[in-house]
């Protein structure tokens, strides 16, 4: 789900050496070294901004709170992390990464050029996430590279070596537990007659008090027909018989988990079909399942309703260090589900008369099937 990007990520996060020790990063860098050897890259530059920093976090542990960060990882020599914050902020940023050499990227020439000068010879550097980089920063980078080094997009190759590590799955399970607790807190105020924004805020507060790094919510002010970001009006419930529809995503220790929250007071046909569609998805989400076929089956089970517009034509995608790690399950998808992937699955429908319903689940694809991490709460409010 697209949500409003906050101006800064304010929640708690530090490199937890107990959960992700240095040897874990050595394994990941080892995979990157192999790629560098295969492609003749002298180094790989991994860029991320506050909105999308999945690859950067995977290799460095660093999650960008503000602006951008870039890990400079050489085949020979020491890595360096550049952050778009002042030198005043460097000590705090060092708490988020195993890379000891952290510099403010604001003084580009003094932060990047000396590191580059240590690379031997000339040749190609791999780049990851550079589509996200602002043009002025890219211009500075190109100036520094000059004619000595060229850039080669390494996004696809790097994505190929990023298999989900067991330690990551453990962290995703922790995020899943957190979003389940927050989801329950979402429903309760509504059940007691409070407004939808009060309910969403209760859920967010619950997550933040449990050390969530980031929390995103969307709510429906119109019975599930559309979703909206924070309005701040905190209106009371207009119809005490109405159901509720909301969405919450929680980031914890770097990893996202999300869910739709639907509370019903009256049984509705659209709700039944949405649940049936999700059950179909869960039954079929196994290694080797074709994403396009999953989509078709889910849409078939949803009939006579069509997919809710807020899902933008997708009934799932991979989730992890990003809310959207790719692998969208759409009508035109060409991939199959693979062991070790974690998917957020979501279906919804809308009836012009009675309103909309949305539900979701998170699953980890295993060697033989799937592990259900969580389901949207089945919330009968009366």
């Amino acid at each position, binding site marked *: 789900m*697209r*949500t*409003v*990007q*906050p*101006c*800064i*990520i*304010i*929640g*708690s*996060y*530090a490199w937890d050496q107990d959960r992700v020790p240095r040897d874990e990063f050595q394994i990941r860098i080892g995979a990157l070294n192999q790629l560098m050897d295969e492609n003749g890259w002298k180094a790989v530059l991994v860029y991320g*901004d*506050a*909105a999308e920093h999945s690859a950067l976090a995977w290799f460095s542990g660093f999650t960008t*709170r503000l602006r951008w960060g870039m890990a400079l990882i050489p085949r020979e020599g020491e890595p360096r992390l550049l952050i778009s914050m*002042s*030198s*005043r*902020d*460097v*000590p*705090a940023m060092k*708490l988020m990464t195993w890379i000891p050499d952290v510099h403010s990227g604001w003084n580009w020439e003094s932060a990047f050029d000396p590191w580059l000068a240590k690379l031997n010879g000339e040749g190609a550097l791999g780049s990851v996430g*550079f*589509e*996200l*980089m*602002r*043009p*002025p920063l*890219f211009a500075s980078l190109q100036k520094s590279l000059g004619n000595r080094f060229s850039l080669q997009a390494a996004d696809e190759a790097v994505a190929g070596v990023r298999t989900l590590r067991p330690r990551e799955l453990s962290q995703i399970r922790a995020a899943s537990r957190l979003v389940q607790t927050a989801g329950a807190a979402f429903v309760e105020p509504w059940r007691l007659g409070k407004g939808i924004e009060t309910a969403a*805020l209760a859920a*967010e*507060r619950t997550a*933040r*008090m449990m*050390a969530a790094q980031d929390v995103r919510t969307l709510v429906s002010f119109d019975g599930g027909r*559309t*979703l*909206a*970001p*924070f309005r*701040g009006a*905190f209106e009371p419930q207009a119809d005490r018989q109405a159901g509720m529809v909301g969405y919450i995503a929680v980031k914890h220790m770097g990893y996202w988990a999300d869910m739709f929250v639907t509370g019903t007071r009256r049984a509705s046909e659209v709700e039944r079909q949405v649940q049936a569609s999700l059950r179909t998805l869960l039954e079929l989400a196994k290694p080797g399942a074709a994403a396009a076929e999953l989509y078709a089956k889910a849409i078939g089970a949803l009939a006579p309703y069509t997919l809710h*517009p*807020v899902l*933008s034509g997708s009934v799932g995608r991979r989730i992890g260090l990003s809310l959207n790690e790719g692998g969208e399950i759409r009508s035109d998808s060409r991939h199959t589900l693979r062991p070790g992937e974690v998917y957020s699955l979501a279906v919804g429908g809308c009836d012009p008369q009675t309103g909309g319903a949305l539900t979701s689940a998170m699953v980890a694809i295993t060697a033989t099937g799937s592990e259900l991490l969580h389901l949207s709460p089945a919330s009968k409010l009366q």
Partner: protein
Amino acid sequence: MGAQALRLSETVRYLETEGLDALVAVNYGHNSFLESHAVFVLSGVRPIGESAVVVDRAGSSTLIVTPAWDAVRAAKLSQTSKTVGTEDLAAMLAAVLKEHRLDGRAIVSVGLSTLAQGLAKRTEAALGGNSRANELFIRQLARIRSPEELAASEKATAIAEQGYAHMLCCVRPGMHEYELAAELYCEMKRLGAEDNFLLLSASQHNLAVRAAGGRVLDIGDIILSEITPCYQGQFAQICRTTVIGKPTPLMQEKYAILQTAMRAGQTAAVPGASVRDVTAAMDDCFRAAGYGDYCRPPYMRVRGHGLGITSDLPGDLTAESDTRLEAGMVFVMHPNQYIPETGYLMCGEPVVITPTGAKALSARVAELDSVAA
């Protein structure tokens, strides 16, 4: 006429004066509290994703939002003639330009340099590759807050102060920093803050303020908070220092230097004054107290800065800035400073420039606060 409608009219006049056919303003889907959000300035909408506004010389305007489903909400809020939703901003921009009959015409762009370069390239292609950029236009256009924007800044300031008062009631030794930040953040959201640049951290000797972490608060801690709620598109920031337990006379003595610097800055910040001079007025107070060598990073960052999301002018308050202050400009002034004897201390208020200097928007200016241990 509201601020957005007025600025759309001023944009049309600018196009006429410059002999341009249209202006295309874009935003990358982030709401930076230090930057101008050109799409918000012209439309009154903060779209969820990447967005654009097209204004043509005839006065017709179109807001383009992503994702497509956000168009329903955006259309209700937007001051533009039309609102459309899409999953592909660049492709829709090309279609809208065609609809406005602007293919190959003289177009000025705002905000392209803030886009991710992948999207920037596609957007440039949609503009036909021959637009010219004027990154300053919206920042200049919105540099003086309209009456309703100033009222929103005042409301944002009140939310910050009420949030801080709530924080003082909540804080106790044994809490995690993130729990205190959660209390503060959620209280301000309850009061209407749609976003918040909130840093909160504590130490017995702070090097700087940072985002809240897992540290457990203790007696004698100095809690630093940079509290920056956004209300109706106006960020306001207060900077506060709070001691758990009784502040020592040394802390009080050093904090008074920051307060003196704040007052000196406010006095110097009259219309026409340069940012350089205002900064010097504050730095002089630290120099007089023997801390001249500390008036540079990493011991401080800047002495204040503009506040988004309408216009970030006058920009950073630094000794290098020649920007001139104008009556009605709103920004935060904060002589936050690392002092070797006490660690980093914070003192700052949102201010509006008046003929007699910078007037704080806050009802109660920063003191060295304390809470019972």
